[in-house]
């Protein structure tokens, strides 16, 4: 008899090796892509979050290593083109990426090296899930984890367009979309994500979202005391808040951190396509169905009068008599000219 795994509280613990019953079940799913009627979840899990304190990051990439090792991905070895990002962008085999930005602070004239761990933000209102046309390819659990179910993914790439943070990547050969899972397999047995455990400066922490917000408030206060007056928490409300949050020393200018969106929202195209356009399309389909049904009932087959039959006969005769001469004349032309050319 296996016991139910506990809910995750921290990333700083050693994973179990004894069999535990998963604590992240299909009944804990809150939203499913391309599915309107999701059975209401039987319970509400504690909302979790990963907090990334950018001011503590040293850019060591231990999170990337740990991510590769845990998820058994094999990113390709790339060329060094003179930047620190490695690989150069998120890939289907690299779910998280340190992005390095050099920014000259106009107030102090000092060069600041801003290092941000990029990856899935696990939005409360996920644009990927909303834009996905494949039933069950993207799910959201009641603890906030947005997970891709590769078995149901058709690799269409709509999630890439739907994501306000440009995170998912399509695998070229497997034809499925890939991104950070927040280590849903670890969370299911009461553990935190691999990146948060490995982080040597504890810049990445993990736990219940409320606790992470409280920790962020402490960090923001500390940063303000150190002269970062605009320090703040990045938990964008345009997507309903996120389950991966940043502490930024310049929270008033998120875009200096390698293009972090100032006010991320799901693209109006996705909203329109999945909202009014879908309804209009369905109404048009309904009208066409109704129209054809009514037409089938009320319209009579076309009737051909005797006069029309005669006209058709004459037309047919004309074509049959004229055709051989015309086609014969044209057929000789090209052959003759071909011989002349030789």
């Amino acid at each position: 008899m296996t016991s139910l795994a506990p809910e995750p509280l921290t990333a700083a613990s050693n994973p179990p090796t004894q069999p535990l019953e998963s604590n992240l079940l299909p009944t804990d799913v809150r939203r499913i892509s391309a599915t309107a009627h999701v059975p209401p979840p039987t319970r509400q899990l504690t909302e979790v979050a990963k907090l990334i304190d950018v001011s503590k990051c040293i850019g060591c990439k231990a999170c990337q290593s740990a991510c590769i090792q845990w998820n058994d991905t094999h990113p390709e070895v790339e060329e060094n083109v003179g930047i620190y990002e490695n690989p150069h962008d998120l890939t289907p085999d690299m779910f998280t990426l340190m992005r390095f930005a050099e920014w000259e602070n106009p107030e102090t004239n000092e060069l600041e090296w801003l290092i941000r761990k990029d990856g899935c933000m696990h939005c409360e209102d996920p644009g990927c899930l909303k834009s996905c046309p494949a039933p069950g390819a993207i799910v959201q659990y009641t603890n906030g984890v947005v997970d891709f179910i590769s078995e149901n993914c058709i690799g269409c790439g709509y999630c890439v367009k739907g994501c306000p943070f440009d995170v998912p990547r399509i695998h070229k050969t497997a034809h499925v979309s890939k991104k950070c899972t927040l280590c849903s397999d670890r969370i299911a047995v009461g553990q935190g994500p691999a990146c948060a455990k490995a982080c040597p400066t504890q810049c990445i922490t993990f736990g219940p979202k409320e606790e992470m917000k409280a920790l962020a408030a402490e960090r923001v206060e500390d940063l303000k005391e150190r002269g970062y007056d605009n320090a703040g928490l990045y938990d964008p409300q345009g997507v309903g808040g996120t389950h991966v949050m940043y502490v930024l020393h310049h929270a008033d200018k998120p875009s200096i951190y390698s293009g972090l969106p100032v006010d991320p929202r799901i693209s109006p195209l996705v909203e329109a396509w999945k909202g009014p356009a879908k309804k209009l399309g369905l109404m048009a389909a309904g009208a066409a169905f109704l129209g054809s049904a009514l037409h089938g009932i009320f319209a009579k087959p076309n009737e051909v009068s005797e006069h029309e039959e005669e006209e058709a006969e004459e037309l047919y005769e004309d074509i049959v008599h004229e055709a051989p001469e015309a086609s014969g004349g044209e057929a000789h032309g090209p052959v003759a000219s071909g011989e002349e050319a030789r």
Partner: protein
Amino acid sequence: MNVNLSRRSFLKLAGAGAAATSLGAMGFGAAEAAVAARVRPFKLVTTTETRSICTYCSVACGIIMYSNGDFKAGEQAELVHIEGDADHPTNRGTLCPKGAALKDFIRSETRTTVPRYREPGGTAWREVSWDFALDKIARHIKDDRDANFVETNDAGVTVNRWTTAGFLAASGGTNETGWLTWKTTRALGLLPLDNQARV
């Protein structure tokens, strides 16, 4: 399979199909199949844990190695995962990028797993047994110490020192291994003692 389908009945069938799917999309009937979500199976279930120390630098982070098959029970063990040991006082579970990637280091095809020997003047390495290697090292230590051991200095004071050889110890050891290293080398009279942390 051959189906005799006239143009008219093909159109009828296509129309019926389009109508049915449209009705489904409008919310009539359960056209949207409920697909059960499942997370990836937890890959460390029933693996054997082995505590160790990271091989890289002198910080000596604690690691846990997870393997399929119990090596101590005489089974062939296959390493599947390594992560930091949260109970270890040095690193409390964290690791640097190199330590976090230790699995690939250990599973590397080019890693040396057995002692290799190249004779003086030889050009090729050959694999040898641990007994051969240890005997060889003991022989060299004994010969060199016998030839160069200094019992007394010029003033006649007993010094018992041996300065023609050195000992390079691992930096990632515990206090206990440090004590053993110290005792072994000092008992031989060996003075040059260092480890790879001082690079």
